[in-house]
């Protein structure tokens, strides 16, 4: 029943997408047709498919092969709901649903001011929807019926929704790692909103190129969607890192899972795009470059999905095991080839950029920022894919890991931080002589002082000191600008400084929202520098009653414990944490054993203090002793706080009313 309902949803969403493409093209060519109905159909059908999957999971309907293979009667809430996106086929439904929502949002905008560009964009989005809903009825069908049951799980399935079902009694449940922490329930949907959201600027760009109107209109129309996508992508990446830290004892910054790199790629390009889009809107420059960026960002979301979902990362050879890999790779090639063909056909219409007058200008710093971000993305791309390509072509294995990325990406990060200090205080077109010196001498002194204090008091590890120095440079430059603008208003108006600060912030909110994101990036950088360079580590074997001194704490192994939960057996050790004879807390590092999956997940216990985390990992436990890993992650909470702050900047910018109250004069003051 649910198989039928879900399949019907997928098929009708596909039909809606086809109609949307046909009608969208008709309208874009100057005809007239209703686009609201097909877009509504796509959304309603996608909702039906998602609901059918959730109902199947919540009602333990093991006649669906997906449910039989990824769910168990014992899977607790909210992981039973999240199981809908815990494996490939289900996650594609979620992708389709989010895409349908973005199509609907774009349709609403089109309905309020219908024109050919909007219709063309909807047609492109319909095309993307055809691909994803097409996947669901071909190579990645989430509603296949189980026709051969195992004792747990399903051995064979049929795509025909009315096939006679063989219903297994139970399933193994979702991947153990995925049911070990609540963040896993929200991290994928958030990341997907980011991935899928980049379809909107891509669709407008392709629409604009097809219609031969490459002016800034497509940028204006897709601006909000780009911000939604970027903000969610930021949030998703940070939640993913956080989850890995809490669940996996996170093994490093580049390497533990190239999937992290796969989501970083579109983020880097989207970040470059947000900045360069601003340059085109304000100064008419970089038109062609914006097309390149937006096409690349979209293609990279597909590449990311390909790398994650085809199993290629684990081994080049698993590429051909599932048809999803070739399908995604084929789609990416189609996107790249199609888009760039269109781009070169229309290139005579793309305006030549006006000459840049001075590099010491806002657009100059954006140019540098774009170059750095593009090279950064290139480093991550080549580092992630080169080993795969080399092995696919020659069979030779090479390892590319943390040392490679660090050697190239760390210097680029420092340059980016430096640019973040200069850019915001530099006016458009060109700075008057002496302006930069006036605005930056203060921040430079503050930054150097902070660096010297850090070196004298905290640590003399070069990377950490440099990051603190640059971070202070960026944030005090931003703060200095805010004070300067507010003070000049106070002198004229006589109102108190705090109220003028509020006025300055209110007058150009999207600018200050951007600066909030910059501060977030600074926090992330400082957090990474501390946590990566100054950790302490110790491995101990303890019997109950034993104690060990570590990083200023005294840890006492109190007792082991064991409890049976519906879906797992939890074994752990109670460790009392004392500082100067005062008991701070009891930590319980655990080994969670998922019997149905025969998998043990090591679950660390974390205590967060202002100076960083104490991180305990249980390696082994028996009646007599435990093996325990003791780690510190200095200041690591700055990474999470910074990531959230960066995303918050994006959301603030989104919340800014389009009818900004800013007068043209205030704008001029804010930017000159």
């Amino acid at each position, binding site marked *: 029943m649910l198989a039928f309902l879900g399949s019907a949803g997928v098929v009708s969403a596909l039909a809606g997408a086809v109609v949307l493409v046909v009608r969208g093209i008709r309208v874009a060519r100057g005809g007239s047709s209703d686009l609201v109905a097909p877009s509504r159909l796509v959304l309603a059908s996608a909702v039906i498919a998602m609901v059918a999957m959730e109902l199947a999971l919540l009602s333990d309907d093991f006649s669906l092969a997906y449910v039989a293979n990824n769910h168990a009667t014992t899977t607790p809430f909210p992981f039973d709901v999240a199981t809908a996106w815990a494996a490939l086929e289900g996650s594609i439904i979620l992708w389709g649903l989010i895409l349908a929502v973005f199509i609907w949002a774009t349709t609403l905008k089109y309905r309020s001011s219908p024109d050919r560009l909007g219709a063309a964009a909807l047609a492109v989005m319909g095309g993307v929807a055809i691909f994803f809903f097409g996947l669901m009825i071909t190579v990645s069908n989430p509603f296949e019926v189980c026709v051969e049951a195992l004792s747990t799980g399903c051995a064979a399935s049929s795509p025909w929704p009315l096939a006679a079902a063989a219903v297994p009694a139970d399933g193994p449940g979702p991947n153990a790692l995925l049911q070990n922490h609540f963040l896993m329930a929200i991290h994928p949907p958030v990341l997907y909103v980011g991935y899928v959201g980049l379809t909107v600027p891509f669709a407008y760009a392709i629409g604009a190129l097809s219609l031969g109107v490459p002016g800034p209109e497509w940028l204006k129309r897709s601006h909000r969607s780009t911000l939604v996508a970027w903000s969610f992508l930021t949030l998703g990446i940070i939640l993913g890192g956080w989850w890995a830290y809490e669940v996996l004892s996170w093994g490093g910054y580049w390497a533990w899972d190239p999937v992290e790199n796969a989501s970083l790629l579109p983020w880097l390009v989207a970040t470059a795009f947000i900045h360069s889009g601003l340059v085109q809107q304000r100064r008419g420059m970089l038109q062609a470059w914006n097309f390149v960026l937006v096409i690349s960002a979209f293609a990279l979301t597909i590449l990311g999905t390909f790398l994650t979902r085809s199993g290629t990362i684990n081994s080049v050879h698993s590429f051909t095991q599932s048809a999803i890999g070739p399908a995604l790779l084929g789609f990416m090639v189609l996107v790249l080839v199609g888009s760039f063909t269109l781009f070169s056909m229309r290139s005579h219409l793309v305006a030549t950029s006006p*000459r840049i007058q001075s590099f010491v200008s806002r657009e100059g710093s954006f140019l540098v920022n774009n170059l750095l971000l593009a090279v950064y993305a290139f480093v991550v791309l080549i580092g992630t894919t080169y080993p795969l390509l080399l092995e696919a072509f020659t069979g030779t294995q090479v390892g590319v890991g943390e040392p490679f990325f660090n050697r190239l990406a760390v210097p680029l990060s420092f340059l980016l931080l430096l640019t973040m200090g200069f850019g915001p205080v530099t006016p458009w077109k060109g700075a008057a002589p002496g302006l930069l010196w006036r605005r930056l001498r203060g921040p430079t002194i503050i930054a150097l002082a902070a660096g010297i204090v850090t070196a004298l008091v905290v640590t003399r590890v070069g990377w950490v000191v440099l990051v603190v120095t640059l971070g202070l440079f960026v944030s005090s430059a931003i703060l200095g600008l805010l004070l300067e603008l507010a003070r000049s208003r106070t002198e004229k108006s006589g109102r108190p400084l705090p109220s003028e600060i509020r006025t300055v912030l209110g007058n150009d909110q999207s600018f200050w929202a951007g600066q909030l994101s910059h501060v977030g990036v600074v926090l992330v950088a400082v957090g990474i520098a501390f946590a990566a360079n100054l950790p302490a580590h110790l491995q101990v074997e303890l019997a109950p009653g034993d104690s060990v001194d570590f990083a200023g704490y005294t840890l006492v192994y109190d007792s082991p414990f064991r409890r049976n939960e519906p879906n797992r057996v939890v074994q752990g050790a109670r460790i009392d944490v004392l500082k100067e004879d005062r008991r701070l807390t009891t930590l319980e590092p655990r080994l969670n054993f998922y019997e149905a999956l025969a998998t043990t997940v090591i679950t660390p216990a974390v205590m967060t203090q202002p100076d960083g985390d104490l991180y305990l990992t249980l390696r082994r436990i028996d009646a007599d002793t435990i093996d325990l890993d003791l780690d510190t992650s200095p200041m690591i909470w700055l990474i999470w706080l910074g990531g959230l702050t960066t995303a918050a900047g994006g959301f603030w910018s989104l919340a800014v009313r389009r009818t900004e109250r800013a007068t043209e004069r205030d704008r001029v003051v804010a930017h000159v």
Partner: protein
Amino acid sequence: MSDRVRSLTTATLIVVMAVALLFLISTQPATVDRVEEIGARIKCPVCQGESIANSPSPMAEDMMDLVSERVAAGFSDQQIIDELLSSYSGALLLDPPPSGNTLVLWVAPVAALVVGLAVIAWWKRHPGPAEEVSVSPSGQRSRTRLLTGGLILVATFTAIVVLAGNSLQDRAASASGAADLGDQDLADVSNETMEAVIEANLDNPEVNGMRLALAERYFEVGDYRSAFPHYLVVAEDVEAAPAEAITALVRLGWMAYDGNGEVETATRLVDEALAIDPESSVALYVKALIRWCGRGEAEAATRIFEDLLGDPELETETRTRVESDLRLAQDGEDCQ
């Protein structure tokens, strides 16, 4: 103070502070942990892209122990890395040197940066319109762009075609097909390929055959470290075929004895194999060897050897070895 003097003072202050900061950083006492440093450069063979310094897996810890030993013994970084890479299959240098295959990894990003800078510099000087946006008529410039676009397209296409061809070849050859794992002739397949296939087919019960074949290769050249994890997986797999489980258990037993001198463990493992099939000639033979060599029980070994020779189905090669061992044991000599 005039503005000029004040600026000069500030500038001097900045320079002094910067020099002080650089001095502090550059004179920091060296606290480089060589063990960690080397560990961070080696990929853990059984992990996904993690270095052995980061990975909690037993194999990585094993390798880190080796690094500490060698560092303490005064070996050079290069010597230690060479030893790790040669004795652990699947271990890779995460920090590939810029030469040969990996040159492009290092050159391409730098080239991208240089090209980017060149484009920007050219743009600053090129005679574009000074201010307003203009739409250039289709002329010289657009032809250049078309050419560039075309070149990009051709390059992309070529890459795709080669990749597609290659992956199809793969499919036809060894690596992918899950179903026909068992029937493959593994003679021409490299150890690395087998590792990769095993990695890719972790859930496929038929992969045990390939695991064993690979483990046997390691075993025969005495690379117990590499053979061990594969035998272990097969031995612990409840669905493994009896013959496969026996082979794995017996080899583990022999490695426990021969590699680590753990007679108890070895006996237990071989007994587990005998529990599956009490008649297994391999298990009986190794049991005899362990009793003889490990415990000096030559008489017990002699009885087992004689029983084995009584089995008419014993393979000729094994028979020869058992016969020669029997003679030595009867003569009261030490095992070899």
